[in-house]
């Protein structure tokens, strides 16, 4: 805003603060709850908004598992976070590789039924995982991929969105660049590797952030294909803590939730610069 208008200024700040409060309050509540002991949570109604002093033992319990003073046992979150990390990384990187290559084929090569291929990829945009979950499960189970990283990741790797994004980006790369590379004697894959890939860096970074979070937050699919506790991602783990037949230890649940939130937040913060660049940059 160029003009100084105190009323408008006040109003816009009020809206922003309200927005932040709405988004941040539940988060704050989770953090507070994770620092209090189970007894404190059970006793206070409503929940106290002042952080307690049991953070260390709660987080240790959440991370490494074990028994608390009242004898309830907790599965450790650390191995589950490892499963989540591997899954999210494989999904994000796999998606990027596959869609880069398919977009490259669609934009730069002439082959029979090219239009049909593109539209087939495009149509899958309209079919979310949930729609094709039945048949996909049957295939994965027939191939014996239940309870494995392959089963957790491969069905989620193919991505029409990412292919489309890269296609749009490749279309903006000037044709003369391809021609210059041809004059220089670069083979198609050489052109892809030396020219196209470096130019796509920012788009790749943006896509990595989006797809990492997508992979990390998968819930329904892991729920179907994993029955072995060793293969549970952390998002399932939270649910398991709540579903316990006995008493729900909310402090541990909240601690696990906070822990599960950290890696995606870290990815966003670390890649923020690239992420924004990738979404808005048009510099070629």
């Amino acid at each position, binding site marked *: 805003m160029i003009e100084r208008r105190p009323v408008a200024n006040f109003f816009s700040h009020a809206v922003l603060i309200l927005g932040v409060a709405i988004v941040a309050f539940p988060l704050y509540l989770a953090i507070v709850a994770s620092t209090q002991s189970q007894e404190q949570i059970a006793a206070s109604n409503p929940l106290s908004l002042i952080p307690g002093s049991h953070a260390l033992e709660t987080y240790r319990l959440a991370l490494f598992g074990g028994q608390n003073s009242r004898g309830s046992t907790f599965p450790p979150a650390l191995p589950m976070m490892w499963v989540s990390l591997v899954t999210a990384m494989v999904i994000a990187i796999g998606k990027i590789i596959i869609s880069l290559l398919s977009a490259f084929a669609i934009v730069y090569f002439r082959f029979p039924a090219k239009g049909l291929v593109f539209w087939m990829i495009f149509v899958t945009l309209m079919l979310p995982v949930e729609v094709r979950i039945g048949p996909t499960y049957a295939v994965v189970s027939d191939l014996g991929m239940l309870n494995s990283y392959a089963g957790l990741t491969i069905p989620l790797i193919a991505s029409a969105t990412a292919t489309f994004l890269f296609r749009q980006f490749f279309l903006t790369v000037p044709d003369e660049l391809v021609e*210059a590379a*041809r*004059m220089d004697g670069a083979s198609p894959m*050489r052109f892809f590797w030396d020219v196209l890939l470096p130019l796509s860096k920012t788009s790749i970074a943006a896509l990595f952030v989006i797809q990492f979070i997508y992979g990390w937050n998968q819930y329904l699919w892991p729920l179907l294909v994993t029955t072995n506790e060793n293969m549970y991602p952390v998002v399932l783990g939270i649910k398991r803590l709540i579903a316990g037949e006995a008493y729900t230890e909310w402090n541990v649940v909240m601690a696990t939730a906070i822990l599960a939130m950290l890696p995606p937040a870290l990815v966003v913060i670390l890649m923020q610069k690239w992420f924004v660049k990738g979404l808005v940059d048009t510099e070629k």
Partner: protein
Amino acid sequence: MASIKLNNVTKSYGHGAKALQVIHGVTSAIADHEFIVIVGPSGCGKSTLLRMVAGLEEITGGEISIGGRVVNALEPAERDIAMVFQNYALYPHMSVFDNMAYGLKIKKVPAEEIKQRVAKAAGILELGKYLERKPRELSGGQRQRVAMGRAIVRQPQVFLFDEPLSNLDAKLRVQTRLEIQKLHRELGITSLFVTHDQVEAMTLAQRMIVMNAGRMEQFGTPEEVYNRPATTFVASFMGSPPMNLLRHAPNADFGGKPGAILGIRPEHLQIGATGWAVQVDTLEMLGAERLVYCRMGDEFLIVRTDESLSSAPDIGATIHVAPRHDRLHWFDAETGKRLP
């Protein structure tokens, strides 16, 4: 270094009845070391012709040979040529050095030699200071020189230029034009230069190909093209202002050729006491000269006069203009071809 031969080269897009032919049988022989400019209005097929020589467009019919070797089926990189693109087509993420070295790296030229060649090209083009910069950190003229440097380091048999000056401002264009000329004198590499700008064509060309609608209208030195245009198209395209073409000239005055078109350049018309009676339409003052736009019956006529002509004619006045009899051009009214 090599000669280039075009033998009845044609190009069409599409197949069968719907095919659109854009190049209609161009034949010409370009000698070693020559600087050839291909000039014509936009859409005349000049860039397409160049791209066919480059190998970026397939050749529908005919044959192109470079240095005695038919190149129809060869990839661009195998033709031993280098091209400067209109938008330079520099790799944006590579430094100036890498841009120039990329083709050599692919050819697996030893690193030491790459360095030498790039340094030499950078020296010729005065790019030494900028080797570490990215293209976006350079001005338009510098980018243009990098594009030329990329062509030079390959030490090709033929240079191809696709309107390389059209993205530069007027001053830089003149300067770069001179640099290209100098470069050609030094390296002596056979060059094909495409442009729509007739001044560029006149100043750069040793010989020029004038194209129109996919056909070669004339192939000759700038003097030939200017002084003896082969068709009415060439006559009106080369020269600014264009040649006057009079369909109903009082031919009898000049031992006339009945029904023919009379061409006369504006500078070969003289305002005086005798000659055709014409009416002044508009005046344009260009500094060193003045253009007088006249009307004679239903035909228009441009006269170029020295500025020293102290009294400019009034608009609407009737004046007399006399053509120089040794500078008349006759063209066939049907075909537009020059009559001997």
